[in-house]
Structure formats: structure tokens, C-alpha cells
């Protein structure tokens, strides 16, 4: 299951970030590392980016970037 599929208001635990380009490195550097808990705060209109809460701050990423983040409920 990926972070993209997590419902607004739910929390999930990151298990992996796929890919080895600068985007996946950026996601890791922003704290989306295996084991961290992430809450989906909301989404932008028209299928826009997702707003996440992790490590005490809020981060916004696009849906196709969220699809790279594997999670466990």
C-alpha cells in the first residue's frame, strides 16, 4: 500500500521509498524514512498535492510522489 491511498485524517508508518533519483532522496531528507509515522492532514482541490504531518512539521508532496512511499497501517 502507498501513502497516496491513505485517507485524510489517518496515520500510517512508512516502510520504504522507491526509486533512486533526486526526488526519492529529497523525500528521505525531508524525513520520510522507514519507520516514521505520517498523518495525512488534507489534500488540495482537483487532485492536487497532499498535506502530511511528520516529525513535528507539515510537508506537502504531489500524489505521484506519495505513490513512491510504501506504508503499513
Amino acid at each position, binding site marked *: 500500500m502507498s501513502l497516496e491511498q491513505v485517507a485524510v485524517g489517518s496515520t500510517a508508518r512508512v516502510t520504504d*521509498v522507491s526509486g*533512486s*533519483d*533526486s*526526488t*526519492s*532522496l*529529497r*523525500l*528521505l*531528507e*525531508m*524525513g520520510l*524514512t*522507514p*519507520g*516514521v509515522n505520517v498523518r495525512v*492532514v*488534507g*489534500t*488540495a*482541490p*482537483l*487532485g*492536487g*498535492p497532499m*498535506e502530511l504531518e511528520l*516529525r*513535528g*512539521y*507539515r*510537508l*506537502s*508532496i*504531489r500524489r*505521484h*510522489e506519495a505513490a513512491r512511499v510504501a506504508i503499513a497501517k
Partner: protein
Amino acid sequence: MSPQPDGTAPPDGNPSPAGREDRALVVALLGNPNTGKSTLFSALAGIPTRIGNYPGVTVEEKLGRFTHRGRTIELIDLPGTYSLVPKSPDEQVAVDVLRGRLAGVPTPDCVVVVADATNLERNCYLATQALALRLPTVIGLTLTDVATQKGITIDTAELSRRLACPVVRVVAPTRVGVEALGDAILAVMDSTPQPPAGFEAHLSAVDARHEPAAREAIARYAWIEELLAGVVQRQTPAHRPLGEWIDDVLTHRIWGTLVFIATMLMMFSSIFWLATPLMDGISSAMDWVSGLVGGLLPPGAIRSLVVDGVLAGVGGVVVFVPQIAMLFLFVAILEGCGYLSRAAFLMDRLLCGVGLGGKSFIPLLSSFACAIPGIMAARTIENPRDRLLTILVAPLMSCSARLPVYLLLCGAFVPNIPVGFSWLRLPALVLAGMYAVGVVTAALVALILSRTVFRGPPQPFVLELPGWRWPRWQVVLERVREAVWSFLQNAGTLIVAVSIVIWALASYPHSDAAIEADVAATRTALAAQLASLPASSLDHADVAEQLASFETDAGLAGFRRGAAQRQSLLGRMGRLVEPLVRPLGWDWRLGCAAIASFPAREVVLGTLAVIYNLGDIDPGEEEGGTALVRRLRAATWDGTNRKVFTLPVALSIMVFFALCAQCASTLVVIGRETNSWLWPVVTFTYMTVLAWLGAFATYQIGTALLG
């Protein structure tokens, strides 16, 4: 734009050990974006001694200088960055400066890592990377007041012990801890720091299937979690912080969008209403100065150069200042309270569709007021491809300088008939259409460029949504001052130079005899025209009025000015480009006006007035502009009774001005912001080609439909 010494001798990169006590200490300020780095910079060094670009790149360089306990400290503000593994030009600069690899920038003696106390885990990512550089390092812990409100407590002494470097709490706006930070800087100066231990153990624990950089990131966070265990305590505060509640509303898909639309409408209507009186004031002040200077200088070429060239050029620059200041005031307030990131978040999907991103929104919206602050606001886009693309299409947004042109032509040549509803009239529809022409063209250009020249891997949108907080007025005012000053300094000089060139082209060669001959010829032609017109027609009255104006001094002076302009190099260029503008339905005079309006679109009205033998029209009267409108309506092709201005011609002029790059200021600012002369040339070329094609299509289709 090469860096220049700032009066006092800057420290060089290779000091001799003996001279160490005498020279300034170089301290680099490093930190994540949104950590209060700018506030700390102001608290330490006050107003920067220099703001410019780092040599060779478009990344902003900000230097400051202050004295602490008798030592002079040179402060370098590094670009905000999340990591020292560079992925953007900004981050590359930060790394290069820290490693002493950027020519012209001294190697720092000490690094101050600015860390946000509300978000220590992620801030420690950069902090621990910086410690690995083995430069003397101090950690400045900012936003501790906000952290306390959130129920976060930090054991600073224990953190300092575990990271093996001093950690100083700073509340920059109230200067708490600023002295202590200065002391800590002096104290660590000569130490050779040992990075904190334990990272390697975590690195070897990470699955080897990951790339080295990914392994480092995973291990670093695991290590940071261990380092911060017991140091950071979180308690759920009794009340849910106001900021979180505000944030839930602001990023809500429905409420957030509504608040967003309301905010943007308020912002732009107020820029329009607040800046307009100031701009009018500046115009009047410049007119007064011109009159004063004109009265002091003897008539002749010098007076003309000073008044019509230099002062008109300066006025043309200074008049933009209120809009730039207003826009940057709003942008700085919105940025300061964290709303700018929310706007980018909300608009990302829409802009992604045309190959841009959420962060392009504010620059593009600003460009409806004026492309100059819009292009400057594109600095907030860290991705160079998106930034360049945004800068290239920003001038297509219909700025406030196009509005007088639209209003004049819509009012004069578009029939005032209702369209479908009694309240919706054709001129208003055409006006809205001109704005739409710009937006649609910008979307298409962005789409095409992003699929061709600027094709590349999809750009990530990984954006921090910083906590809601009150903007710091020092930082807000500093941003406004910075924007206004850099505009005046860099763009100003070039805009004045361009204005002088246009003045020279419009003034020379100047021969009184030739002018008198031209005036006489015009008079004869008008008299002949009068004789051929039926006495009852409206045109008859207009031509008679024009003939009558030969008898007044002011009228005669107007005709002389027109004749002088026709004979000038500019006038000759107008005739030269006539074959080019004829397919647009224009006569040579319109071509000439288009060339003369290169410094600024709004000049076209004055030029039209002069060139159609009117003398100068008071710019304040442009909108009503009855005299100008009547003369334009009466204007005919040289030697015929065929009208120049028909509906298709008016539409073709409006489309041309909607799409053209007739604004020297914008081109100069593009040159400065991209640090290259290529992009202003590209912008001018593509916009002029599009403007011509658009005007051509409009005229040809309009003529075919309307006859």
C-alpha cells in the same frame, strides 16, 4: 554583475595566520528555509552591506557586518537549504561556500547553524551534516518561544553535549540570546571540532540495497532520533494551538480555496487602489521637477536631453516603485505568516497542467499588476527550470500599463452595444478578452516550452508548509527595502540609458527648415481634404478644427513636434517598418508609435498624440481622452480619405500590445534576474513574433468578418 568591494576592505580567502586578529572573522549563516534565518541576520548585523548574486550564479548573496567585543565579524547569509547534498543551485552555493570553493567568497571561519526548535528532528539533519565539515560550529536554536507554546521542551545543555558543539537559544526579534551567540562564535573560533560519534554504526545498519545517498539519509534520521531521545520532550498542550486550527481552515479543499480567492482579490485590488494615488503623486512630482529643471536650463539640445531623456527616463523608473513596494509588502507578509506555501499548495494542480508548478502562482498573479515585481517574486521558486519558465511567460499577463491602451481603444472604436445581457456591453467583453488572450497565450507558451526546450524529468514538489506565525515586521520591511533598492540600483540605470537612446532617436536629425516645410505641407493637405469633404459631415468639422489650430501657438507647436518626430530617425524607422505593419492594418505612424513605445507601453498614447499632430496629451486625461479619441477617429491614410482606425485595426493594436514585450524595464529585470542577456532577447523575440502573428490574425479575420 560582478561583486564589488563594499568600501571597507573585505577579508581575502587566504589570510596569513599572523594577520588573523586584524581581519574580520567570516561567519556563515546556514539553515533550513523558514527557520527565522533572516530575522537572526537582521538581529546580528542589521541592514546588509551588500545584496547581489553570487559570482556566476543567480543565487542571492547577502552580506552583513557587525562588531562583537571588538572583533569585526563578516556575516554571509547562505541560501536556505535542507541538505548539504546539493540538488538545486541554491544548495550548491551553500556547499561551495562552506567548502571554500566559490571564487570571490572567503572561506568561513565559523558556521552558525540556525535550527528551528519546533522542528528539531528535521533541522538536525542539516546541522549534523554541517558538523561533519569540521568547521567551528555554533547552533542557534530559534523559535523557542513558539516551541514552548506547542508544549516542546529542549534540554539545551544535553543537546550541546551530545552534538559536541555550543547550542544557544535565540529569540531574534527581542534580541534574547543574540549576545550569547556572539560570545559562542568567538569562543569556538580556534577550536578544531570533532563531529559527534555514532553515525557510522547507524550507516552500517541500513540495508545495503539502498543507494549511498539514500543510506546516508536513512541512517542520519535514525541517528538523530537516538541523539534527540530524552533531549526533546513533547507534551500535548492544554489547548490546541491556534496555528494548527488556522492551518486546517487554510488548507481545507473548500474553505482554503475560498479564503485563498478572497485574499488574492483583496491583495490585488488594494495594490491597484493604494499604489495608483502614489504613482500619480510621483508622476506629478516628476512633472514639477521637469518643469523646474526645464525653466533653469536654456532651451536647446541639453534641456531636451535632461528633461525629455534623463528625467522622463528616471520618472518612468521611479513610478513603478509604489507597485513594487506594495506587492513585496503583501508577499513578505504572506510569506512571513506562512501563507505563500499554502497558496502554492492549493494552486499546484492547476499550474502543473501547463508545465509550471504551484510556486509559479504568486509571480504570475503579481504580473497582472506589473511584470517587474512578478519576475522578482519568481526568486521564491528554487527549481531553476520552473523559475525560468515562469519568468519567460510572466510578461504575457496583462499588466496595469496595458490598461490605458485597452481603455482608450475599447472606448473609442468598439461599439457600445449590449451582448446578451443589458449590463454586459461589448467594450467590457473585449477588455476581458484582452486579459484572456494573455493568460491563454502564457498557458500555451508554458505548455509548449515545457514539452520541448525545457523538457526534463518531472520536477518534484516537496514543499514544507511552515507553521502559522505572525510576520516579523523587521523582516517584512527589509524585504520591501531590498526589492525597491535592487530595482532602483540595477534596473534604474539601464532603463534610463534606454530612455535616452529613444529620446535621441526621436529628436535627431533636427532641421527647422525641414520642419517648417513639413508643417506647411500638412496644412495644404488638410485644406485640400477640407475642400473635398461635404460641409455637413463630422469629419469636415474635425478637419476644420485641426486647420484652425494652426492659428494658435500651442496648436502650431504641436504640429511642429509632429513634423520633427516624422523627420527624426524614429520617424524614418517607422516608414522603414511600414511593410511589416501594413498586414496588421497599420499605417507607418502606428508602426512608429510601436517602436517608440519600446521603453514602456504606456508611452504609445503620448506618441500617438504627438505623431497625429496633437501635441502632448496630458496623461491624466487619457481615459476620457476626448481630444485624442476624436483625432484618432479622424485620422486617415496619408493622402487619402481612408480611415486608419477601424474596429479590426483597433483590435489588432490591442492584441499586439497584449502580447508584445514593449517594456524595457521588464527586459532589463529579466536580464538581471537570469544573469544573462540571452533570456531578455528570447523573451523580446518570441513575444514580438507572437504579437505580430496575433495582430495579423486579428486584423485579417476581423476584416473578413466585418468587411
